[in-house]
């Protein structure tokens, strides 16, 4: 008799398409296109935004996973706590696997001087020569952050429905838009820029900042799910 959290994790793990095949198909197809460009056009040392595809995919996976499995799990009388813990465990595992694959590919890319065509596909800005360990960590945190971002949106939808989500984005747009308007009107951009420059985060510091944000998102998402219901 397994713990129910483990059952939830294994339930997700059964879905290799969502977690492994599709994101990597998306990423590798982007890679192939860029590699072809490298072969044909022969630009010198070019970087692509291809890595974004897997990050965006993780955001989508976070949104979709709740829609796909929450009612199923609760229908089988799994607690929201076990559901959340199992989902995080499964996603964390697959994300770690993806981060390792990305780091290995980055090493290969560096060893082959950009796959022989000067293509910098797996390279993150400011991370070109900081070693595989930091690259692995950064990939992991970035993917995790995107996933929990999606999970929070998915939980918001599950908890408050379409209107709730709409309202949230409307409110967010208003707050952010209002802030930008104020800063522009008062001509504060220079000050804001100066403040950001002064902070001068290193990559490692930035990853920990992201990690903190991720934890907050995780907490929010859990609290939302705890009050979420299954109607039909």
């Amino acid at each position, binding site marked *: *008799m*397994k713990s*129910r959290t*483990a*059952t939830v994790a*294994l*339930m997700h793990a*059964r*879905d290799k*398409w*969502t977690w492994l095949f599709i994101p990597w198909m998306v990423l590798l197809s982007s890679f192939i296109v860029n590699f072809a460009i490298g072969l044909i056009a022969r630009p010198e040392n070019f970087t692509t935004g291809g890595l974004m595809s897997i990050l965006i995919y993780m955001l989508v996976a976070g949104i979709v996973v709740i829609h*796909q*499995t929450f*009612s*199923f799990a*609760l*229908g*089988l*009388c*799994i*607690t*929201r*706590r*076990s559901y959340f813990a199992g989902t995080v465990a499964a996603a964390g595992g697959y994300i770690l696997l993806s981060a390792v694959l990305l780091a290995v590919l980055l090493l290969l890319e560096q060893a082959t001087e950009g796959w022989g065509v000067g293509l910098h596909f797996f390279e993150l800005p400011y991370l070109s020569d900081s070693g595989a360990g930091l690259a692995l960590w950064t990939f992991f945190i970035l993917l995790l952050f995107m996933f929990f971002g999606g999970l929070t949106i998915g939980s918001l939808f599950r908890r408050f429905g379409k209107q709730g989500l709409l309202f949230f984005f409307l409110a967010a747009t208003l707050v952010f838009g209002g802030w930008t308007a104020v800063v522009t009107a008062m001509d504060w951009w220079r000050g804001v820029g100066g403040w950001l420059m002064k902070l001068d985060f290193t990559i490692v510091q930035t990853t920990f900042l992201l990690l903190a944000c991720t934890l907050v998102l995780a907490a929010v998402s859990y609290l939302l799910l*705890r*009050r979420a*219901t*299954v*109607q*039909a």
Partner: protein
Amino acid sequence: MHAAELKGLTKSYGGQHALDGITLKMEENRIYGLLGRNGAGKTTLMHVLTAQLFATSGEVKVFGSDPFENEEALRKICFIKESQKYPENFRVCDVLAVASSLYPRWSAETAEQLLKEFRLPQNKRVKKLSRGMLSAVGIIVGLASRAELTLFDEPYLGLDAVAREIFYRNLIQEYAELPRTIVLSSHLIDEVSGLLEHIYLIDRGRLILDEEAELLRSRAYSVAGPAAKVDAFLGGRSVLGKEQLGGFLRASVLGELGEGGMAAARTAGLEAAPLSLQQLVVQMTGNEAGYEEGSA
């Protein structure tokens, strides 16, 4: 300890009561029928019982404790519903694998047996199954789970008569082998009435009947015959409903007919018979005003 206990359970949506002050106690190891029309609140009640929905007020207990986030209690419940959603890429065997690891008393044998009887292809994606096959998946999970409290909410949508027979037969067999509390919500009342030991009837969110199935047999009857004679016979009795066809009248009457009543009906040249469960439910929930105890 009771398998389930509800006290003054109310669930409302913006002032509308989906469930209105429901109080009931389900004993362990019995088969309950949860009857009522569409929208009466049966599904809502089961969702509250499994903590998928929250009660607006009132108390819910499953095996003695609140089911919300209560793994101990929820482990003992299996809820099969017509509207159950499954993950996009899941095959039948994935569903069974997940369910089997959730329920401590899961019977692989029962699952295997039912897969064969329903002729369900194990490797087919659940999304691609026909309505009937989808219902079969739920039934297999429900019976093989052997959960202490098993809830079936309209479990046979799209199943043909043969498949429904398979369900009923296996339900009885499973119940005999390993008694458990079973709640069956159904529209096909005549089909299941033989299985049910206790009846709950819900109408517009209110529990209007809570009675042993045995006792219900003597709770209402019908009399039929020439209209004038039937009317004479009905004087002072609590009439549930009347159907007239020319000079012929059939009336459903609440109350015990008894030996005396039976004899009186016979001497008046009337036919009297106990009301079937289905007829009783139709009479009690069919009218627009809703059923009121004692109304004639």
